[in-house]
Every structure is written in structure tokens, then in C-alpha cells.
């Protein structure tokens, strides 16, 4: 909820996630969810009795389970409680965070737990995504979640070598970050010296999108507990405050690309960022934020989207990557967790962005903690067909007074 429309402030007081992995044969879906829920309750020093409402999110039919929220009650702890199920595609993890914020801010509930989950090894991702396309003119043709158009665009704009190297540089940085995160699914131990070899050797999936550049398919769950300002202050020693969030999306079919001459490519990221920063009086997002947990389905998209999210021009985003300023100790650390390329249990993925951004503010990220103080964090979700969700997190509740950097003034 936009900050100035809020009935009351909302803080994050508990965070839990599973180890993300390609196979979790040892647990079924509710059991895996229970791991994340238990971890979040422990983190918040609460029990299920304290939770007023559960917001459940995952992908539609990815595990071939109808109404999973009911079945997952065994893991979410929703027995006898309010429980809401949300599914908005890849964004769902972020949407449940937004919904939880709205539910608490509205005054309906004091403490809400968002639970995102996926067990991609149990289902067939492309089979599920295929259903999104129009049966008459697109379903038989499309390639599920894989697309090569972004690589084509970047190569067209910046030349083949620079574009490919930027994408692979981003990929290697994410691998290094994932290596620091105990919960991350994939970390190969890639080195920058391997960059050119990887460009040549990694198999191509669609166009110039290579296997190693694509996100993983993971099993995992994440739970985040949101509380009203009063409860947050009572219960949490190091709360993280939700400042604002925005959701932007376009029509639910794939042929959006090239549909309009003025909008030949995905514009929802840029549009969302513009609106969010404008209403929060942030004119230099790259200066303002200390960390960005971005939903990066593939390294090509990630490199391109930096330009949209930070309102950059020309090749500023390429330079951020080339100069390794997106590394954990760089000017704008991107995904210290290793991001979506490192771990992707889809229904949890976007919620993990919020969780990881909040951990950075708390200083609790462990080995992948950014070595400088983190006051302002940004997290994004992507999915749907063309959905963008952005969420801003703050260390201090009175962020306007606490930090004037990048803020034009409090016009409240």
C-alpha cells in the first residue's frame, strides 16, 4: 500500500526459508512448507497462536495440485485461521508480501504470515506456463518461460561481444554470491577467467539465451511475518519497515512484444519504477538504495532490467556490470543472495527477494551480508505474463528524517 494511504505502518518481524534444492524427496509439500514456517516463527520468537492470518502463494497447477492452500494447512499452520490463497504467476511471492502488508495496514489483522512455496521437481513448469498462451494462435508455438528476444535486443544495441560478456559477467557474479548463501540452490564456483569459455561452451536454449544463463528449477519455501507498528515494536528488536510497493501489469498474453510502436518491449518495470520513486520523492534511486534484490529469471534480462529499475540511460547499466559494481561490495549490490539464477522455487522466489532484502537491513544475512550499513532496500518481482512488483524496505520508521540522501523533501 502506498505509504501515504496507509492506515498504519507495517513491519517485518520474522523470516524463514528452506534450503533450496533440486530435489527434496525427503519431504512432501506441506512438510517442506512447515520447515520455512517453523523457521520464521522461531526467528520471530512466536508460535502459530500469534498468527492471525496466512497468505499462501504458489504457481497455478505447477505441482498438479488443486487448491494447495487447503492441503498445505498441515504445513502453514492455517488450521482454524483465516487463510487467503493468491496466485499471480512468478510475481506471486511479492504479491503475497504486498497483500500481507495491505491486510495488516488496513487494520484487519495485526500479524499476518506470507508463505510462498514451490516444488518444481514434482511438476512440469513449461507445461504449466503453456496454458497461459492463447490456444488459437500462440499455444502451439511458444517456448514456455524461455525467451531469446532480450539477448537479441542487447546484442543489437551494444554489439555481440559486449552484450554477451555483460550477460555472462552478471551470471558469474550471481554464482559467486550464491556461493556465500547457505540456502542457495546452485553455485558452481565459476570464475571470471571462465567467461569467454562459458560463452562458447554453454548450450543455447532459445536464440542466444544459454543454459547457464537461465534460472534454476528449485524446491523450496519461504515465510515472512508482517506485523502492525505497535506489535512490531513490542515483538521485534530489529524490525524492517515496509515503506511502499507498487504493482504494474499488462495484458495476459504473450504477443505483447512489438504490439505497439511506442512500446516495443517490456515497459512495466520502467513504468513501475517511475511511479514508485515519484510518489516517494526519490530522484536518484541508484544513490538512495543500498541493496537491490531483483527477480532475475536470466542474466540477459537482469542486465537489461537494471536500466529500467534504476532509471538509467545509454549503457550505464552495462557499465555497472562490467565494473562489477553490482557485486556484494560494489556501489549497488545486486542479489547478494545469488538471486533467482541461484535459487528459483517460483512461488517463493519473489518473497525470498523481500526476505533477503530485509535480512540485509537487519544485518542478519550471514556470509552474504553487505559490508556497509544497509538502510534502504529495494526488492522486485516479475512474472504473470508481464507483471512487475516493486517493494521498498526501510531500517528506520522515520526514514524521511533519518536520511535525506536522494529525498527531495518530506511533503507529507
Amino acid at each position, binding site marked *: 500500500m502506498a505509504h501515504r494511504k496507509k492506515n498504519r505502518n507495517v513491519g517485518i518481524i520474522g523470516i524463514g526459508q528452506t534450503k533450496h534444492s533440486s*530435489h*527434496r*524427496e*525427503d*519431504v*512432501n*509439500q*506441506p*512438510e517442506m512448507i*512447515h520447515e520455512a514456517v517453523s523457521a520464521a516463527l522461531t526467528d520471530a520468537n512466536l*508460535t*502459530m497462536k500469534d498468527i492471525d492470518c496466512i497468505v499462501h502463494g504458489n504457481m497455478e*497447477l505447477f*505441482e*498438479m495440485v488443486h487448491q494447495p492452500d487447503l492441503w498445505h*494447512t*498441515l*504445513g502453514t*499452520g492455517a*488450521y482454524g485461521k483465516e487463510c487467503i490463497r493468491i496466485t499471480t504467476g512468478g510475481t506471486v511471492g511479492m504479491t503475497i508480501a504486498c497483500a500481507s502488508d495491505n491486510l495488516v495496514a488496513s487494520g484487519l489483522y495485526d500479524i499476518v504470515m506470507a508463505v510462498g512455496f514451490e*516444488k518444481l*521437481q*514434482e*511438476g*512440469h513448469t513449461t*507445461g*504449466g506456463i*503453456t*496454458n497461459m498462451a492463447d*490456444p*488459437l494462435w500462440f*499455444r502451439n508455438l511458444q517456448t514456455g518461460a524461455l525467451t531469446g528476444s532480450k539477448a537479441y535486443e542487447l546484442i543489437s544495441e551494444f554489439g555481440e561481444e559486449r552484450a554477451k560478456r555483460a550477460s555472462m559477467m552478471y551470471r558469474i557474479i550471481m554464482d559467486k554470491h550464491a556461493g556465500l548463501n547457505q540456502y542457495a540452490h546452485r553455485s558452481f564456483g565459476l570464475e571470471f577467467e571462465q567467461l569467454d569459455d562459458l560463452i562458447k561452451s554453454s548450450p543455447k536454449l532459445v536464440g542466444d539465451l544459454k543454459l547457464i544463463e537461465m534460472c534454476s528449477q528449485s524446491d523450496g519455501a519461504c515465510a515472512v511475518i508482517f506485523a502492525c507498528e505497535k506489535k512490531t515494536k513490542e515483538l521485534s528488536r530489529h524490525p524492517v519497515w515496509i515503506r511502499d510497493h507498487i504493482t504494474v501489469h499488462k495484458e495476459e498474453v504473450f504477443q505483447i512484444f512489438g504490439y505497439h510502436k511506442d512500446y516495443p518491449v517490456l515497459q512495466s518495470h520502467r513504468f513501475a519504477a517511475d511511479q514508485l520513486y515519484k510518489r516517494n520523492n526519490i530522484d536518484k534511486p541508484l544513490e538512495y538504495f543500498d541493496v537491490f534484490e531483483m527477480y532475475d529469471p536470466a542474466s540477459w534480462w537482469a542486465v537489461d532490467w537494471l536500466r529500467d529499475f534504476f532509471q538509467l540511460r545509454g549503457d550505464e547499466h552495462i557499465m555497472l556490470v562490467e565494473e562489477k559494481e553490482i557485486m556484494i561490495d560494489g556501489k549497488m549490490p545486486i542479489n547478494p543472495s545469488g538471486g533467482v539464477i541461484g535459487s528459483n522455487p517460483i512461488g517463493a522466489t519473489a518473497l525470498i527477494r523481500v526476505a533477503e532484502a530485509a535480512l540485509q537491513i537487519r544485518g542478519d544475512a550471514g556470509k552474504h551480508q553487505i559490508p556497509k550499513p544497509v538502510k534502504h532496500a529495494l526488492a522486485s518481482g516479475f512474472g504473470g505474463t508481464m507483471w512487475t512488483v516493486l517493494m521498498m524496505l526501510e531500517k528506520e520508521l522515520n526514514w524521511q528524517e533519518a536520511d535525506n540522501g536522494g529525498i527531495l523533501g518530506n511533503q507529507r
Partner: protein
Amino acid sequence: MSKKAEQSESFIVEGKLALPYAYFAGRVGSTFITTIRDQKKIMGVRCPACGTVYVPPRQVCDKDFTDIRNNWVTLGNSGTVVNFTVVRYDDRHLPRTAPFVLALIKLDGADTPFMHILEEVAPENVKIGMRVEATFAAKTTNTILDIDHFKPAPEKVRMTTERPEAGRKAWTPGDEPEMQEKRRGGKPDMSTPVIITAALTGAATMKNQNPAVPYTPAEFAEEANKCWKAGAAMVHVHARADNGMATHEHDRIRATHDAIKEKCPGLIVNLSSAVGMGKTAEQRISQIVAVRPEMASLNTNTMNFSIIDRKTGKIFIDYVFENTFTMLQDFGKAMEENGVKPEIECYDMGGLDNIMLVAKQGFFTYPMNFNFVWGVAGGQAFRAESFIAMMNALPPKANFTTCGVGTEEFPCIMQSCLLGGHMRVGLEDNIRMPNGEFAKGSWELVEVAVRIAECLGRSVATPDEARMIMGLKKK
């Protein structure tokens, strides 16, 4: 435009979605399904916090969120139908050809039901509450269909199982505080094992009322043995002639007594000193002295002992059952002198007072054993407060059991068990089960008594324990 023309211009995309999936059952689910497959055993988990037994099992109790994954319990293969439906259409995804029954079955010992196919019974004969048991598949499919189906099961019968005391430590009389004092405080002593007596015949119940009533010595022996297996420590016997009439013939009574002792040597045999209607005092006591059972009934007052229509009040047989003070004295002395412990039958508080008057002569050995009898036409009807008044009037160290005619059998024995007393059931007193169906024998009524004892957490006495409690000498 006709409807047909409209349709002909409507293009329809015929599609088919293929959504393959795998499902990771988890460790708990894996144990459940592989145990069914490999051991033909159905397992559940019990929540240590709330006691709920889940079948199929789960890792977390959804009620209190407790981790319950390691608290396995093995359930039997039989259970009860708690709900069902009849599938009456055919479809590829269905496991059977219609019509077939899908039932929600709650296994014995489980708190949650699960669904399975119910076969070997016509759909119209399926009822909620019916007993069913699992039939395992001959060949595994690695699915829940490794239980092929459930089928109707015979009613739960304890006959094949061990006596209820199996596996527990034998009871011995401890250095217990005065029982009567405890009772007065309103705190019953339920620590003693409960003695269950099966009254096999009486003088009035006939085979035309319930075919399980024994007449011949062999039938008595068979029925007594079944009662012993079910949990009885003692049988109460009115011997019968072959035509079913109550008999005072010494040879027949001895033959009946000995047949029981031969078939079931440990069992206590308690003979009637009432025998039947119209018997003289001599006929009634001489057989006791001749056969010398371990125990015999001693009736405590002269009273109406009639057969009255309970609904209309119409008198069928009017009879006065004579038990004068002299008879109390002579019967009591004869029994004690011959090592036969009297079971003192009190049909009301007056009978109890009568025996306590005679007891002042001092020939009764302790402990005295009383039986409160309810519902005789001529005696008092069962009332909970009357029961407590009778119990409070007992002499020190006395034991009490109880029996009731007809439907009064169950409430009176339950109250007795609750108050630390003992229980008598059997076809002499009552020919029906609590649900109104005919009892298959006195043994089935003994099973009801055993269940009552189990519900109250009391152990069921072995014959030897009963002897210790009642002060009998084994013969």
C-alpha cells in the same frame, strides 16, 4: 441464421494438456505406503500433545502444530464405515466399474478416516457404522491400491483373543486402608481388579427366549468356558434338566458343576441355593452341602418374586419366594460349615438389614460378599442413590457385586464398577445386548462388562485374584 449454420462457422481448437508430475511423499508418507506394500500393515501417527491418531499419517498435527513424525502406531486392518457414497457412473479415472462404493473408513484406534473402495457387499446393504476390514492386493502397484479394497468384517469378537488380564502383573492384596472408610468419603477404591460373574441360566430363562441358554452339562461347560475366555472369573449356575426345567437333583447338579470344572478348572463355580420356584428348603440347601461348590447364593428376605408384564402391569405368575430368618440362619451355617462362601443376595435394603441381624450370631466368615439385585418384580428397581445407600450400609471389609434384570443390567454394573464393586451379567438376568439385539451368549455380555472395566481403567480379575478378594478356598 439457423443454429447449425452458427456452429459450422465457429472454429473450435481441440486440445489436450499433458501435465506430467511426480510427487515426493516425504519420509512419513513413504513409511506409510511402503509398510502397506511390504508388510501389509497400516500405520498411523499419534500426536503426543493432543492424542489424535492420524491415518494416513502426517508430519505435523494440524491442530496444535506439533511435530509428530516419529510417534508411529500400528493400526489393525479393521474399522468402521463413517460415511460412504455409491459411484454410479463410469469414467476412465475411476478405479472400478460402476456401481461401486467409496467409503470413509475409520480404523480401530484411529481418529481420522480415510477413503477406500468397499466391495463384497451390495451397495444397498452398506450402512454407516458397519464393520469392515482391509484386503491387501496380491500384487503391488506401489499405490494406495496395495490395499485392494475393504470388505465387510464380522462383528468384533473377543473369543479368539487372550483374556483381558494377559500381560499384566498379578494383583495381590496390599496393606490397604479400611475400604469402608474410603467409600464413605465418596472416593471409590478402583485399584482392585473387578470380578466379572456370568450368570448362565437362572431358573426362568429358556432356550425359546435365547437359544444360548445351556441345559445339559456339556452346554454349561461350553458356555462357561467361553465366559472365562471373555474375562469372567466366576459362573453362577442353576442346573437344568434336559427339558430345561430347573432341577434340585443332586446328580444332575453335580454333573453340571463337574463338567464346568473339567472344561475350565480355574473358574469359580457359584451354585444357586434358590434353585427354582416351588423348591423346599431341604431341596435347596442339601444340594449345596452335597456338591460343595466354592460359592453359593444366600437369599435374604421373603419377598414377592413374580413375573409381571413390565409395560401393562399384568400379572403372569405370582409367587412368594420364601427366605425366613430360620432359613437364613440354617443355610448360612450349612454353607460356612462346608467351606462354601455365601454370596449374599440383597433385593432391597431390608434384606441387607436381615442378614446383618443374623450375622450377629457370628457364624459368617469375613470378608462378606454381597450382591445387590435390581429389577426383580418384588424387589427394588435400580436407582443410583439406592445403590450408594446400600453400599454405605455394608459391614467393614465387605465386597459387593451387582446384577440387574433386563435393561437395568448395564447401568447397575457400570455404577458398581465405578464405585469399586464388581459386576454380574448373563442370560439369567438379561438376554439382550445394550443395542437391543439378542446376546450370542452370556460371554458376549461378559465382553460388555470387560469394556466397561477398560473404560474406567480397572483391570479384570482372574479367578485366583477373585478368590483372594472374596476370601474363597480353591477346591
